[in-house]
């Protein structure tokens, strides 16, 4: 019952490629959507649950991607080993970073994470002999799973959809756990959380690391799927887009982040028919959504549906 929505969503994700195995929207756009959903869900752990904004989430995504790219092409490591090392390095890095950065609040935290994201991006661009500079790195080897090379769009869909479902499951579990409630408590009232015995610095730092490691793993998968990485994919603008996904869907709701990511990934594809006006219409839709549905698309709609059913149920009683 707790995971009813999750099973429904998993079923939907599973059926799509069976019904439309050759559709561009499923196997190509679908993979992008899955990547974005993982990133939005991981960012939501920090932003939505713990109430700590991050304008530098794309940096962790990029660090994971570059770790895989560098370790596999330059050092010839197995992709899975590289992914693991990348995740551990990002974990340690984010843990060290978390203590000083999470002492900041609100606008100051936004500024600090923004600065961090920009520094990492500059690092990707400038360290030519390690990262390939602005041209990026190509020739990232194919990932294989149980001896099967993941070399087609459809296979990538299966891998990324599984990773996405796993991350959603993790996120839903966190919401219903001791530390998840502690995070929500920090969000609700930090003073009250402390007097309930919650080490707020510690739980915030934990979720910061979890969120960063999830983004790093998504980055590793992204690098192998694209077989190419360049700094462009991990810029400040992508960080902002991720924040928009979380806010658009509705803060503090895992499925809010999921729907926000889906909409922001599909919208540009649909709007392609408007050619020159694409960006204008994209912006207008975002503005309209935030004005009319300030709590976020998913959260507002699910509340309205809930109220509708509840009142109808009472009338029939």
């Amino acid at each position, binding site marked *: 019952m707790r995971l009813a929505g999750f099973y429904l969503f998993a079923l939907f994700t599973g059926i799509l490629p069976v019904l439309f195995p050759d559709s561009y929207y499923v196997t190509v756009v679908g993979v992008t959507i899955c990547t974005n959903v993982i990133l939005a869900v991981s960012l939501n752990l920090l932003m939505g649950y713990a109430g700590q904004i991050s304008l530098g989430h794309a940096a962790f995504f990029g660090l994971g991607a570059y770790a895989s790219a560098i370790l596999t092409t330059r050092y010839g490591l197995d992709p899975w080993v590289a992914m693991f090392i990348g995740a551990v390095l990002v974990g340690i890095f984010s843990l060290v970073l978390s203590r000083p950065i999470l002492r900041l609040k609100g606008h100051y935290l936004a500024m600090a994470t923004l600065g961090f994201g920009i520094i990492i991006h500059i690092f990707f661009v400038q360290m030519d002999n390690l990262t390939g500079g602005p041209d990026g790195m190509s020739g990232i080897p194919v990932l294989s799973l149980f001896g099967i090379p993941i070399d087609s769009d459809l296979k990538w869909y299966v891998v990324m959809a599984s990773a996405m479902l796993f991350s959603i499951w*993790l*996120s839903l*579990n*966190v919401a*219903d*756990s*001791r*530390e*998840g*409630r*502690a995070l*929500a*408590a920090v*969000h*609700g*009232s930090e*003073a*009250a*959380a*402390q*007097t*309930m*015995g*919650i*080490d*707020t610095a510690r*739980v915030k730092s*934990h*979720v910061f690391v*979890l969120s960063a490691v999830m983004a790093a793993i998504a980055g590793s998968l992204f690098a192998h799927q694209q077989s190419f990485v360049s700094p462009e994919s991990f810029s400040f603008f992508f960080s902002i887009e991720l924040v928009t996904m979380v806010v658009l869907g509705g803060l*503090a709701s895992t499925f809010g982040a999921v729907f926000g990511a889906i909409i922001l990934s599909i919208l540009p594809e649909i709007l392609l028919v408007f050619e020159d006006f694409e960006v204008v219409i994209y912006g207008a839709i975002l503005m309209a959504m935030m004005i009319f549905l300030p709590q976020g698309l998913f959260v507002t709609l699910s509340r309205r549906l809930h109220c509708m059913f509840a009142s109808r149920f009472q009338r029939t009683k």
Partner: protein
Amino acid sequence: MVCVEVEHLDKSFGGVAAISDLTFKVQEGIIFSVIGPNGAGKTTLFNLLTGLYRPSGGAIRIKGKDIRGLKPHEIASLGVTRTFQNLQVFMNMTVLENVMVGCHMRSRSGLIAGALRLPSVLREERRVREMAMEALEFCDMADLAGRDADSLAYGLLKKLEIARALAAAPGLLLMDEPAAGLNDTETLMMGRLIERICKRGTTVLLVEHNMGLVMGISHGVLVLNYGRLLAQGSPEEVQRNPEVIAAYLGDEG
């Protein structure tokens, strides 16, 4: 047994003394009230006792342990919880979840175990849920467990804060104006609730303006005025003290 020991406590904010040279003791297992006019330093005292403020001078010992330099969550782990004058309910959660947060110190599982929902986590969740329901039942709120906290009326929110604090099984509970904004019947019920909390073995430190309530249930009363100790004793002694009467009614009275 002495529960709280305060010695020569000072706290000033930019040169303005909020608490000066305050010394008192609270025995274990009693209801001890701190009263005084607005601005007397009562809430400041609570914030010092829970570590939200750092003392400028003096010492505080809780159950014999010096709490100087301890962080709020470390003081909480000594079995000290509180309620707030301006409600600090977690409005983003349900009633039950609020109280489950109160069980934080009585449970162990970490973020990764929780994210993977290991069997040990499931067992602990069930236990935490039971402990939280027990605290809600104690406050007669069990039927509201599933409601969103932000849908509750004021009086119930006050009780919810108490339930949340009790879920931590505290040895010492600090209550900051639990009856503020309550009507007469609700105040009466609040008094009974506080007495039941004390009977459970929890020492209660109470800041309250409702004198009927304070004099009715307290075993000891401390009067603060301008951050200084004005009088201390049983409710009867304090009520007869001419200095207390002067502070409350004005010198000319």
